[in-house]
């Protein structure tokens, strides 16, 4: 507590270090063939979830506003990314460049959505704000599921609700209404995910530890006080919200381009909640915590395969127990007696925000 400045610097380097070491270890495991194919298939989704969790932490932990619609931004990024990548198939043969552009466009579109949605959302407070983010998440899911989009030699065609696309010779449908994007060329890779995490960390950690991040945290702590010292709360809430949405969009593009087909239903309320669980379990404002929670909780259901049918039940019980133990004094003391210690509980979350 005494050396907050120094501690936050060390914390940041630890976070980068963790990611880099984890990446090297995984690379070695893959090279040695010591990794199950299911886990290998999970690598890209894990990296996407890590980016999702870090970006949501910016809204929930650092800005202090509950968002229940983060998957909506992932969705916007996913589909605009897929469209970009597909349209550029012939123009850009380098897959890495196409992927990078897809993530960039995905992030850009999600950021624009974040701004537009932020205008009404950020007029509200607390639970009401949370509900409106939920509503926007559902609207995005619902609307994306009705879009048909394809292209042929004459250009792009779009129709809504009914498939009225009339594509010429060699035309290709990219979005197919409720079926979502089909026939995607897989571009994503573990390497790309790793780089996206590094970029995300760079942006988020540097933002948090700068003038703007300080203002965002001030707005979280006390809006009236922030305004009274000349901080525009609208501006900094918007900055956090849009940055968060942009990164979620890039993660969405990475995620979608890892599959041959993705539909809008993949980015539903449950997905938003999943990400929120990562953030809360990892610790509010604690970026490294988000990374660890996203990884552990994505791998956990795989590990629980031994329990087969009951694994999701076990997952639910673990989730409830962790929340209870961390936030109830009596239970926490009980666990500490048996020797299980935990940092960063929600009840002292305010201290974890320097990470």
């Amino acid at each position: 507590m005494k050396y907050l400045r120094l501690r936050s610097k060390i914390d940041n380097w630890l976070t980068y270090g963790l990611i880099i070491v984890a990446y090297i270890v995984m690379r070695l495991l893959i090279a040695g063939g010591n990794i199950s194919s299911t886990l290998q298939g999970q690598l890209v989704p894990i990296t996407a979830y890590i980016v999702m969790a870090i970006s949501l932490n910016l809204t929930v932990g650092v800005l202090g506003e509950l968002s229940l619609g983060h998957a909506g931004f992932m969705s916007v990024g996913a589909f605009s990314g897929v469209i970009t990548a597909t349209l550029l198939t012939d123009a850009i043969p380098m897959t890495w460049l196409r992927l990078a552009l897809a993530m960039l466009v995905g992030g850009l579109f999600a950021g624009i959505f974040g701004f537009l949605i932020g205008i009404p959302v950020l007029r509200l407070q607390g639970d009401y704000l949370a509900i409106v983010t939920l509503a926007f998440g559902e609207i995005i899911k619902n609307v994306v599921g009705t879009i048909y989009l394809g292209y042929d030699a004459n250009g792009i065609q779009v129709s809504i609700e009914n498939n009225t696309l009339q594509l010429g010779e060699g035309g290709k449908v990219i979005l197919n209404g409720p079926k979502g994007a089909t026939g995607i060329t897989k571009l994503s890779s573990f390497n790309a995910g790793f780089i996206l995490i590094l970029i995300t960390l760079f942006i988020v950690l540097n933002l948090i530890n700068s003038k703007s991040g300080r203002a965002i945290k001030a707005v979280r702590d006390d809006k009236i006080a922030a305004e009274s010292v000349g901080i525009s709360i609208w501006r900094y809430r918007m900055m956090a919200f849009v940055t968060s949405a942009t990164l979620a969009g890039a993660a969405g593009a990475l995620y979608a381009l890892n599959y041959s087909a993705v539909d809008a239903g993949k980015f539903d309320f449950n997905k938003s909640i999943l990400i929120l669980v990562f953030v809360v379990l990892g610790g509010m404002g604690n970026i490294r915590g988000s990374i660890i929670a996203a990884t552990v909780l994505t791998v956990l259901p795989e590990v629980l395969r031994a329990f087969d049918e009951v694994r999701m039940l076990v997952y639910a019980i673990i989730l409830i127990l962790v929340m209870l133990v961390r936030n109830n004094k009596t239970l926490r003391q009980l666990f500490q007696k048996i020797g299980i210690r935990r940092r960063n509980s929600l009840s002292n979350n305010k201290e974890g925000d320097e990470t």
Partner: protein
Amino acid sequence: MNRTIKKTKMVPLPSHSIIPERDIAQKPILEVRRLGINFGGLAAVEDFNIDVGRTEICGIIGPNGAGKTTIFNLLTKIYQPTSGAILLDGHDTANMNTVQINQAGIARTFQNIRLFPSLSVEDNVKIGLHNQIGYNMLSGIFRLPAFFSGERRARKRAMELLDIFDMTHLASHRAGSLPYGAQRRLELIRALATNPKLLLLDEPAAGMNPSETEELMSNIEKIRDSFQIAIMLIEHDMRLVMGICEGIAVINYGKIIAKGTPEEIQNNPLVIEAYLGKKKGNHTC
């Protein structure tokens, strides 16, 4: 109570307010005319008029619930006035919001301390310096030279300000973990950091012991002298009010019942009846 009474020569203005003679050459920093607000029928503040000189220390006193804090909330646009006009440095503030008011030159503290409890003491002050730190979001993210020079200057300035109250050694502590008196001082420093022309202090000595209050009094005067700003303060501690305020306004039920120098206020029968005379020696109301 009579220990030290401020002896500044006060001169009347056409508006019937008084300001220190030394400030008379310039326009008052604050001119308030017929200010009022209603809360569902209750006139919490009504027909409030005051002028504050450029380097005046001005006190507002009155019993609990009189409407003193509400006046500060109106001046800083946390509440929207239902009537009246506020001129800051000659400019009408009618269309300004809280943020713009601060940027135009009014900074304040709160009766119920409002710090940023999870941030460090130093960061709390730097938030006050926010609009003077000249780099933008992108320089911050990409760590451009402007970021480093801006942060370095902010840190230096923050330390200078903390030094006024001998708080530099607390710079890296969490603001929320400070003792009460230190929190009050930090809030004052944070307000001062925004470079105001007028500083509003809402019960700055509340919860302080006599020696802390003594230090606060000399610091308030020191701040006024070195920054050449006006200070308006709400306070129940009569020793502080009579000791450092040059002009005093007494409020009861949302209205000014008396205005004058400390001497005049002390001898005003209306004031004694409404406020001072009620419970001698008990100024916690």
